[in-house]
C-alpha cells in the first residue's frame, strides 16, 4: 500500500496556491485541523474559497485566515459565535454563500459520491430557494448541486499510512464527507498507527479518499462552552 505519510503541515500543504478552494472540517472548534490552518495562515496566498460549517468560531480556527483577508469566498451554514465573519458580511467585504447545514453536508457528500445534484425540501419558499428549480414530489423540493474542492484539510484521531481514519466522539462531523469531495485530502492526526492498527471494521473513512497524512502537534483542542455537572 502506498505510504501517504508527510512530515508536517508545511510539507503536506506545499502545493496550495492563491485562488484554491479548500474544505475544512470541524463543527465550531470541535475537530478542526489546527496545524493545517496555522500553516495556511503563514503562507503567502490569497483569494481562497473556503468551505467550512463555521469559518472558525470565537476568534479561533479559520478566523486566522479571515483576519488576514486571505478568504475571498466563504461557504458556511452558521455565523453565530463568529463576530469577525458577521462583521465582514454586514460590511460586504466577503463573498458569502450561506447554505442550510443539511444541504451543505449533503452537497459535499454528493460530490464525493458522484451524484451531480439532488432535490430537497429544505429551503423551499425561502431566500435559499430563490432562482433554483422547483419540482413537486410529495411536496415541493428545490434542486441543489454537488459541492467539491481542490483540497480538504481535516483532523482525525488516528490514521494508518494508507490514510484509513478513526475519529473520536463527535469530532467526525463534516470531515469524512469533505475527504470524499476534494481532489487532494490532507489529514492531520493525533496518532499515526501501523497498518492494521485500526481494525478493518472500525475504519470510519477508507484511505482511498485520503492523499496525505501527517502527525499533528501542539493541539489546543479548545472547548467553547464548558458546562459541568454540579454533582
Amino acid at each position, binding site marked *: 500500500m502506498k505510504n501517504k505519510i508527510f512530515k508536517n503541515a508545511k510539507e503536506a500543504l506545499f502545493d496550495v496556491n492563491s485562488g484554491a478552494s479548500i474544505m475544512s472540517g470541524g463543527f465550531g472548534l470541535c475537530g478542526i485541523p489546527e496545524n493545517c490552518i496555522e500553516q495556511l495562515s503563514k503562507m503567502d496566498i490569497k483569494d481562497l474559497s473556503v468551505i467550512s460549517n463555521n469559518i472558525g468560531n470565537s476568534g479561533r480556527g479559520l478566523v486566522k485566515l479571515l483576519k488576514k483577508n486571505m478568504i475571498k469566498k466563504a461557504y458556511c451554514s452558521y455565523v453565530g459565535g463568529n463576530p469577525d465573519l458577521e462583521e465582514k458580511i454586514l460590511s460586504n467585504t466577503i463573498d458569502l454563500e450561506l447554505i442550510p*447545514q*443539511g444541504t451543505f453536508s449533503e452537497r459535499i457528500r454528493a460530490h464525493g459520491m458522484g451524484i451531480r445534484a439532488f432535490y430537497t425540501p429544505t429551503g423551499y419558499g*425561502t431566500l*435559499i430557494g430563490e432562482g433554483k428549480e422547483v419540482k413537486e414530489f410529495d411536496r415541493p423540493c428545490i434542486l441543489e448541486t454537488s459541492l467539491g474542492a481542490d483540497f480538504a484539510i481535516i483532523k482525525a484521531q488516528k490514521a494508518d499510512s494508507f490514510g484509513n481514519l478513526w475519529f473520536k466522539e463527535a469530532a467526525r462531523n463534516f470531515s*469524512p464527507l469533505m475527504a470524499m469531495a476534494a481532489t487532494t485530502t490532507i489529514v492531520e492526526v493525533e496518532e499515526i498507527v501501523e497498518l492494521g492498527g485500526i481494525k478493518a471494521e472500525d475504519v470510519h473513512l477508507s484511505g482511498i479518499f485520503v492523499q496525505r497524512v501527517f502527525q499533528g502537534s501542539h493541539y489546543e483542542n479548545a472547548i467553547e462552552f464548558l*458546562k459541568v455537572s454540579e454533582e
Partner: protein
Amino acid sequence: MSWSKIEMAKEALGLIPDGASINLGIGLPTLISEILPKKHDYIIHSENGVLGVGARPTKEQVSPTLINAGKETISVIPGASFFDSSTSFGMIRGGHIDYCILGGMEVDCERSLANWMIPGKKITGMGGAMDLVNGAKNVIVMMTHQNKDGTTKLVKQCTLPLTGKAVVNTIVTDFGVFQFDQEKFKVLKLAAGVSLNDLGSRELFVE
C-alpha cells in the same frame, strides 16, 4: 404575569410523549435539557453528530470532542451513537426525529417561521434550522411573545426572511401555547394573568 423561561421549557416538554426523539435548538430550547428529569425516556439528538445526549458531564467526563450543537460540553447515555453530519441530517430530513424545538424571531398564521437574519442588522445563519423544520415530524417554536419594543412576534405574515414555509406545528411563548386553525393562531393555554387582548392583533387569535 407571563411565564418564566423555565416555565416555558416545562410547557414545551409537556407537549412531548415519553420515548420521543428530540432535537433541541440553540437559545431558549437548550433550557429543556436543564429541566429533564433524572430518569427519562427521551432520546436527545444533536445535529453535530450525536444521538443519545446525556446530562452535563462531570469534570472527569469533559472532553473537547464531546459537545452539542451549541458547542457546550455534554455527556452521552449508554446506547448513544456518533455519526457524520450527512447521516445526522439524514435522520432529520428523512423524518426519523420526532420533535424539534427551535427559537424564533417571527411566526405567522400561515405556519411559517423566521429565525436566521434581520437584513442589514444581524445574521446568524440558518445552521440546521431549515432542515429541521422541513424534516422533523413535529416542529415546536419556543420564543418570547414580544420583541423588546413590545410588538408581537406572532404575526399575520412574517416580514423577516423565512426559515421555512408552512412548517410550524406549535408555538410556546411566555404568554401561552398556540397551534393553528384555518390560518389563525389557536390558543391552547394562556399564562395566568394573560388575556386574549394581550396577544397581538385580536383577529389573528381564536380560542
